[in-house]
């Protein structure tokens, strides 16, 4: 599926919270709290997203079409009535990829200037 580059560019650069949420949804559908945990886990607890920031971002991302609320919910055993799950859309993936590319480009520029991050 291809999207108009200007539609994607209009959203870049992504707010960090948005990018993190997209990353968290990249491999599977998650509910809000799971997204927060995933982000905290991947950043070694450095990024503790607040509920307000999370749901404000989610609301905006739903409007922008980056994510959807899937109609099909996970298997009943894992499901919790109150929870709402979110899924990344193809457009969301494209935007996340574009953002990653943009960041890589920035990194390359930084390296060219001799500003090299230490490998961890």
């Amino acid at each position, binding site marked *: 599926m291809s999207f108009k580059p200007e539609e994607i560019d209009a959203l870049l650069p992504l707010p960090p919270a948005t990018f993190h949420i997209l990353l968290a949804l990249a491999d599977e559908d998650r509910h809000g709290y799971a997204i927060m945990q995933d982000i905290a886990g991947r950043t070694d607890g450095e990024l503790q997203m607040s509920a307000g920031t999370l749901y*404000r971002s989610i*609301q905006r991302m739903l409007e922008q079409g980056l994510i959807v609320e899937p109609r099909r919910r996970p298997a009943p055993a894992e499901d919790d009535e109150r929870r709402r799950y979110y899924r990344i859309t193809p457009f969301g993936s494209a935007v996340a990829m574009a953002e990653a590319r943009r960041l890589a480009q920035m990194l390359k520029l930084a390296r060219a200037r001799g500003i090299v991050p230490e490998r961890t």
Partner: protein
Amino acid sequence: MRLYRALLYLYPASFRAEYGEQMCDVFAKQLIHASSPIAKIVLWLSTFFETVFNATQVHWDILRQDLAYTARGLVREPGFAIATILVAALGIGANTAVFSITDRVLIRPLPFPDSDRIVKLWESTPESGRQNVVSAPNYRDWRRMSSSFESMGAYTGERMTLRGHGDPRQLAGVGVSSEVFTTLSAKPLLGRAFNSDDERAGAPPVMIVSHALWQRDFGGKPDAIGTDIRFVDGVYTLVGVMPADFYFPNRDTEYWKPLPHGTAMDSSRDNNILYVIAKLKKSASIRQARNELSFIADQIEAAYPKENEGTDVSVVPLRDLVDAPSRTLLIALFAAALCVLSIACTNLASLTLIRGIARRKELAVRSALGAGRERLVRQLVTESLLLAILGGIAGVMVAVSSLPLLARFVPESLPISDAMTLDLRVLAFAAIATGVMGLGFGVLPALRSSSPALIQVRAKSGIRRERLRAALLVAQVTGSVVLLISAGLLIRALWSIRTIDPGFRAENVFAVNTPLPGSRYDDRSRRMDFYARVLPQVRALPGVTGAAFISYLPMVTGGGIQIVNGMETQRASMRFVTPGLFSTMGIPIRMGRDISESDNPDAAPVAVVSQSFVRQYLSGLDPIGQEFDFADAKRRIVGVVGEVRVRGLERESEPQVYLPHSQMPLRGRMGYSPRELVVRASIPPDTLMASIRNIIRDVDPELPLSLRTFEDIVAEQTGTRMAHIGILAAFAALSLLLAGLGVHGLLSFAVSQRIPEIGVRIALGASTRRILAMVVRDGVRLASIGCFLGLIFGYAAGRSMESVLAGIQPADIPTFFAAVLLVFLTTVTGSFLPAVRAIRVNPVSTIRNQG
């Protein structure tokens, strides 16, 4: 958890409904994970700030969306947007402008520290309700004996002629006691204020000047302090310059000098010459001060019964110097402006309602797409607020452009500038008016338009179902009728004042003020010489048909009051004149003769009196040859002339007495010496002025001359009134227009809703006339209710303005009739177009569409 739920109320309802539960869920988990009390506190704190921040962001997001949505909608319908902004601008602009003047004149504290404690003191006679300036000994006693005041000061107005700065020029100034500055807490911008040394007998003459004078005549240079200012009457050393915003006691005051020692120490309790101001102690109330001064006045009366019989003291806050008519008219204007605002508001409300109904489909779609009612209302209110704010900005511009016109409403008697500025207070008022407007015309229609019943069901319409809109229309009609009646009553009052005969013929007459200085003209013979040299030359000028001198111009100076036959109850105004005054001013001689050259200093004192003098003081006796005691002499009446409205068109005047200038005392009474040269000419004054100037300059080169026409003097009597009426009439016209538009809008909408019904009626054979009548009847019925209410409120408004109506009854039938007729015509005109649309309905196509 309850606390967290409460916190969530910071978010918009739609957001809360969508995510509130989940957020609570997440927060509960976070709370469990936070093990230590410190971690819990940190979590709570961070959550609090996070919520405030994010809620603001969410609100902002919605606002941005709504604004974008609104902007798109308005661009699609620019007519609606422009109409709304214009109406809002007029409503807000009118209110802002009127508020700025009302605030300045009636509300805002005067520009002196603790101005609420500054009062003016008068000698008063409770019997007659008269207030008078104060005699010097009484003032000294008040100061000595009273304890309610922090300070008390006296001043007296005067004029002096400045020389050495171009043409000689007359300046208005005051002699003040040093306590006047203390009382006002006024400090000079440069130099020093007066002290008690300056008030000693024989102290070197010093002067403080206004900022404007300093700028104009001293180039605003600081080293002007210590230099000399030359007046025709003497030389003064400049010791101080007051700040630019210091005005006391009037706007035109240009200098202050110490109260002359002789004036301050004057010993006559009959000679009322001083204005007195005082500052109350913090602990004293006005009532206490009044009681104390009354008590003192009683003691003074007991000690000097002859001069102080029935004399009391009145204590008036400096703020209350605005005279009652000015106050009434300003309040009327403000009420009218509020009326316009509410009419504009109701007008926009009904416009928005109608638009809301037209937008039902759109709202229904949005509702179906999941927008809650709260979001719809919010969107609609955002829209009306945006329009109101745009209108508010335009309104402030309207107000700014009208500020110069409003300067004339600042009464002379207030010690404040008449330069109107738009400040924060006024802007705050405009903001409030805008908010009221936006919410006023936004919320109600929004609630209605978004109500689920209306969205889902295509409501059966017809005017009966549109009660809210009908009520709004009635309100508009009512407001218009009230404004029309108010404006109409004031116009009728103006007419009736304009028809009042001033007692002289103002056309082609003008006056040249020749301020003969007391230092050189105190001697009567000097003045007689001056008149004898000036008058024949002026009379000889081509185009001049008459010229004479008089002490004071009528209406410009209302006073000059003296007692007749030594009786306090018999008062008359006194003017000294040269022969030929009556024919020059066009005052008819009813009996006897004019003052003549033969009434010289050696002849017996004579007088010419007005008709009311004969009626009131001579009880109808044949006046010619009668004698009366007046101004220190027994005077014989040689002539009777017509009545002159000395005190102005709207006020009763004392009877008038005219005395020959040649029979003035040899010295003294300089204040009464004739200094106004009155000229009747068949050519415009301006063309004569140069010749007159040359003639007078030849005789005395140091007189500053100023000219005013009698027509201007008479017009000034009604000038402020004219301006008030202009504004009120504009308001009335505006509201009438809005009401007309309102009727048009309402009926157009009603007709469009009833097209099927009308189609059926036509198909069933209803005549054009019946359809026409059906539509117009709706409008007329609403207008009738509005007119009825308007008449009631209009009468109430008239009653409250009675004091400025110059005798016109508040229930003036012609005014009421005209107002109602105008509104009816407007209503009928407004319903005409919709009615025409109704009779053009094609029955076939409408019925087909129905099917």
